[in-house]
């Protein structure tokens, strides 16, 4: 794998860029692997990368039914933060955030991680109370977090409206300065390239149609390219987790819902912070390309259709203009939907399944992108050792039986 740098760019310019390698090898499936990762999104690719890097397991295939990063990895609003309420969650997301902080250099692929700050607005006393609770919890967990008065909010985000004579005035906000955004596709591509360089086979356009078991153990997967044997299999197919689980004859506490997002036409820099509001239900940031990237809540109904209803967008725009009246004349350029797996406690499931050597990583709901490196890191550990890492042990499937849920509903009332 040739190294990416400004020097390699200049060098290649002289040969009219004819000499660049493929970013990753497009592999044909082998007869069997030590580990098959089903799902070539960010989480799956990160899992394969860390299996190779942290655990020396390189006889690994990532099987993707479409194109890499074509699921939620390429459909989210790219927000990264670790300001979760409960200790278990903040530890997991903080691991992820820390991995993000050096990821461009580690992968030698610029994922454009931009720590421009994530701000959560408070519009009523309840919001203020919850914000304070979170700021204090994060701070005592050693994670950066601070409270801002409405005047500080205005100073940090000059475009925002802090007029108190509006329907939902801004009373303050929490801020995580280390939060921000990254280029979502680049995360998938960067992991794919780095995993491929370590020997991982990346197999696109290959759909898993069955999970073959023998005596309660997984032995491989049936695919549109034939049977592929495996000692261990990890399912990382956000949006379709229940479909894969059904192939192995178990059910999940997961429902698939549409989550919509949209971008504006690009404009010159006007918003340097990620601004989120649970109360009015919208979140917005401006990409490096100049587009305002905007999201809101999930549609209520189940869907695998990658699209939702227009009234969600209407509501979202009302909320946006409540915060930023000056954006009224900007225009929606593109709108799309993803499919998110939602767990009853709005926390993920990472661990074993009822089938031996079959592992699952799902249920990230609306928060999967920010977790990509951490999720891959702990899932690789779980697959490699057969046991969860301390960071993901609380997120096992059996918490739904014991009742030890990690209820982040308060944390994720708005999707992001």
């Amino acid at each position: 794998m040739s190294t990416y740098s400004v020097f390699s760019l200049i060098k290649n310019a002289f040969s009219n860029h004819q000499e660049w390698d493929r970013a990753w090898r497009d592999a044909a499936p082998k007869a069997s692997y030590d580990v098959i990762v089903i799902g070539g999104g960010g989480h799956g690719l990160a899992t394969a990368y860390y299996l190779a890097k942290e655990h020396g397991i390189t006889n690994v295939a990532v099987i993707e039914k479409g194109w890499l990063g074509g699921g939620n990895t390429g459909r989210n609003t790219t927000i990264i933060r670790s300001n979760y309420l409960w200790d278990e969650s903040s530890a997991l997301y903080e691991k992820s955030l820390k991995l993000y902080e050096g990821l461009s250099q580690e992968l030698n692929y610029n994922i454009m991680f931009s720590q421009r700050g994530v701000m959560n607005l408070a519009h009523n006393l309840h919001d203020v109370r919850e914000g304070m609770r979170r700021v204090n919890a994060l701070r005592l967990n050693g994670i950066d977090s601070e409270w801002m008065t409405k005047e500080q909010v205005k100073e940090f985000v000059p475009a925002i409206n802090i007029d108190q004579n509006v329907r939902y005035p801004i009373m303050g906000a929490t801020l995580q300065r280390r939060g921000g955004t990254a280029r979502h596709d680049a995360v998938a591509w960067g992991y794919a390239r780095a995993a491929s360089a370590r020997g991982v086979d990346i197999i696109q356009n290959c759909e898993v149609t069955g999970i073959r078991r023998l005596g309660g153990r997984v032995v491989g997967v049936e695919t549109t390219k034939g049977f592929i044997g495996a000692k261990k299999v990890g399912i990382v197919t956000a949006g379709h987790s229940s479909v894969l689980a059904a192939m192995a004859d178990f059910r999940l506490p997961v429902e698939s819902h549409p989550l919509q997002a949209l971008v504006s036409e690009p404009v010159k820099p006007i918003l340097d912070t990620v601004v989120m509001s649970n109360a009015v239900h919208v979140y917005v940031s401006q990409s490096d390309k100049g587009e305002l990237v905007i999201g809101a809540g999930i549609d209520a109904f189940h869907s695998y259709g990658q699209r939702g209803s227009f009234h969600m967008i209407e509501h979202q725009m009302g909320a946006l203009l409540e915060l930023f009246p000056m954006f009224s004349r900007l225009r929606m350029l593109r709108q799309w939907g993803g499919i998110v797996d939602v767990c009853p406690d709005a926390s993920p499931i990472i661990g074993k399944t009822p089938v031996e050597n079959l592992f699952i990583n799902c249920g990230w709901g609306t928060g999967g992108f920010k977790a990509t490196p951490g999720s891959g890191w702990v899932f690789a550990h779980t697959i490699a050792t057969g046991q969860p890492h301390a960071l993901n042990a609380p997120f096992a499937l059996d918490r739904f039986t014991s009742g030890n849920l990690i209820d982040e509903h308060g944390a994720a009332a708005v999707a992001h």
Partner: protein
Amino acid sequence: MTNTHRTPTGGTVDRSKTISFTFNGKSYQGHAGDTLASALLANGVHLVGRSFKYHRPRGILSAGSEEPNALIQLERGAHTEPNLRATQIEIYEGLTASSQNAWPSVEFDVGAVNNLFSKIFVAGFYYKTFMHPQSMWMRVYEPIIRRAAGLGKSPQEADPDIYDKMHAHCEVLVVGAGPAGLAAALEAARGGARVILADEQPRFGGSLLGSRGETIDGMPALEWVAKAEAELRSHPEVTLLPRTTVTGYFDHNYLVMAERRTDHLPRGSKPGVSRQRLWKVRAAQVVLATGSHERPLVFADNDRPGVMLAGAARTYVNQFGVLPGRRVVVFTNNDSAYQAALDLHDSGAAVPAIIDLRKSVDGPLARKARAQGIRIITNSAISEVEGGKKVRGVQVQALAADGETVTGPAESIACDLIAMSGGWNPAVHLFSQSMGKLRYDEALAAFVPNLSVQAERSAGACKGSFALPACLAEGAEAGRAALAAAGLDAAEPARVPTAEALEEQPLRPLWIVPGKKPVGQKGKHFVDYQNDVTAADVLLASREGYQSVEHLKRYTTTGMGTDQGKTSNVNALAILAKSLASPIPQVGTTTFRPPYTPLTYGTIAGRDVGELADVARVTPIHAWHVEQGAVFEDVGQWKRPWYFPRGAETMEEAVRRECRAVRTSVGVLDASTLGKIDIQGPDAATFLNRMYTNAWLKLDIGRCRYGVMCKEDGMIMDDGVTTRLGPNHFIMTTTTGNAAKVLDWLEEYLQTEWPELKVYLTSVTEQWSTASIAGPKAREVVAALAPDLDLSAEAFPFMSMKEAVVAGVPARIFRISFTGELSYEINVPSHQALHVWREMMRVGARYDITPYGTETMHVLRAEKGYIIVGQETDGTVTPFDLGMDWIVSKQKKDFVGKRSYARPGAVDDGRKQLVGLLPEDPAFVLQEGAQIVEDADNRTPIPMLGHVTSSYYSETLGRSFALALIKNGTNRLDQAVYAPLDGGRIVKCTVTKPVFFDPEGVRLHG
């Protein structure tokens, strides 16, 4: 000198009306009916913008909504708007526009230095660099990228215009008022259907507006259009919507349209009228007649100002009477551009040559051109464009046999316009949005509709039928079929408008037109103009493995501009397919997502802004609260008085005064917002017994009981007092925020789990307005209001209810308390509540009756250790955690939530319990949300025990106090814990029981 390029006659602009406008600080004139693009071209202005990445000079490519280049910042100040297409802006008197992405000017743009580094700035270059040192990304590289990106500028002020919305229903929605759309609308209208005909242009006619010489039903095409429009207007059930873009096609035939109502008028000239209107249409049937977009040819430096789509050139001369060039070279791979050549020639432009990629041409159009003396150079290509900020000429060379290179000597031909055509793409965007499946048509070299999913049909050019007779026939057929599918009978036989067919010869798709040097070496073959994506970029992406269409788009950004790739998608896809040596349909197609053209946020929000942004629910007493100067708190959608400051009182002072009044005399709270549910039926008690955690079968009539409702997971969802009004009749109260949720919850169980229970629920939240009178003097006030009522503790004990006439109004009085004081909640019908309230204040004046708000309520209830759902609970708290074991029945076999208490997680040692906290400093009020730890230690991370849920200064206690949920809290009584606050202060607190005032409840029962 103005309108140097206006033809003496022709076009549909109103030459009698001259309109002045300003572009880049210079004044120009145009005519009514001009777009900004046509008016600029009439003035000889081609250079209108700079490209996104390389800052290349750019002109006007198209004449419609597909324009990628001519993006404009329109107006200044509050009315300013970025990224508008000059091809769609109708000019109006005083219009002010400027170029974007250029500094200091579009003529001399410093950013053009980027073009020099374009060898490095290839597709995806930023993924390969700017990584070292790590800190430089945020500090240096990214800010430069951000400043360079973006196009126009956001307004900096609130929008002075208003926007609104309209729902509409119809049997047939026809999208596009070209020949196919008009023919469809006519057939549907004649059958009596409700028809909506929408078109993005100001005038109906579609492609006919830019045509010349065509006839329909024996009359000139535009005459037929006028006649069709007049007939449609005569049908009462037809709605005609010009300037209306159908932007989104959603599930179940729900379509969204944006109507521009005042954009063609001087800004601010129609106060009170919405600028843009969002139509939300539910159509039984849809006819898509959305036309097609011409494709550019991908040749070297095909982006120079003066390179224009041939169809657009034709439109400018025919519709606007503007010659976009005086000496026009036509470059094509199909017949349609010959029409442009002929019309331009006919209007006085010189057409030195038609350069045709096809090996030979001999159709009727070619013969006509030859007859006009126009030279046709076949099997040849433009191998070089001369001129930078404006085309000066072309070099033409013959194609090699395989079409991959040019060969032989180059001929220079001087020209000031290149009118090109690479074929046509049916505008399948809405069809694709409707989830219809596309098919690649080899003959057209384009995608056409194949399988429909929703109730729609395509007709005309958007279906790949470009010839006028076919458009008309398909339109009429589609209109008729839609009519039938909507269940209506056609009244008469179809009347298919007739037109003359012109035979066309097949096109020759040559996705990359070879230049003098190989692609990527000299000259740029642009695929996506707006995002500066070249054929070399597409090939590079493919080489690097970004070979799915979506990878290609995302890696190169082709098709991601404000035009959403209307002109570039198929070219990019075809070049990718070529690089992979795969057939185009195997490589795939891109997904067209809403909106078809960008839609202002204002339009999407409509009137949901300002005071209409959301409902502000108010109680019947609200007017009085406002009179009293109350400060309000948002509780859900409700406006509740938070506190009632007197004079210059601070909130703290007001709350202390209010608390004092309640504890020493009497106060009153507007509790109207509490949810109230009337429950009737023989099984009402049984039902309550299943929904609440405690027992309900034996409650006496006239008695009240507090209840807690949990979800099946055992966590508290709501609480409140329910009263038995009769053997089969109860009235339940809920918290303010959960009123609707609880009613829904109860209905769900009644209807879906226990339909055999005979119970009816009726919401009476707003039937009753509630005044909660509390304090030692409460009895006196109630006595004065209801003189006939026996208020003695024996006759009217705590937790009971009486009906009585209060201030002349029949009322229900509940002796219940949330403050710990003697308290009566008087419920009267809402329409007489304000009268009763005023009477109460009048008779209470002698006891200095004091209105209090939610803050005082919170302090008083916390002194008593009463919880607030949503404050002491957060969806993870059981009644046991709150020390409320007493409210969970041990006897009942089942109730909602009971089973979950037997799970391991519910009896875990690590669970938190509600306790009281007394800060060591009695004057210091802890922050709500402060976290509690075991040791006075400032290290982080540090394990946390729990958090402060409520915290106040108590006027009654003369000190601060708090409630908190703490791990193992019940075993920590009298122990010290610590709250490390932001800023380093560590507050020592003593754990207490969560009841601070009158623990025996003497005052309640008094």
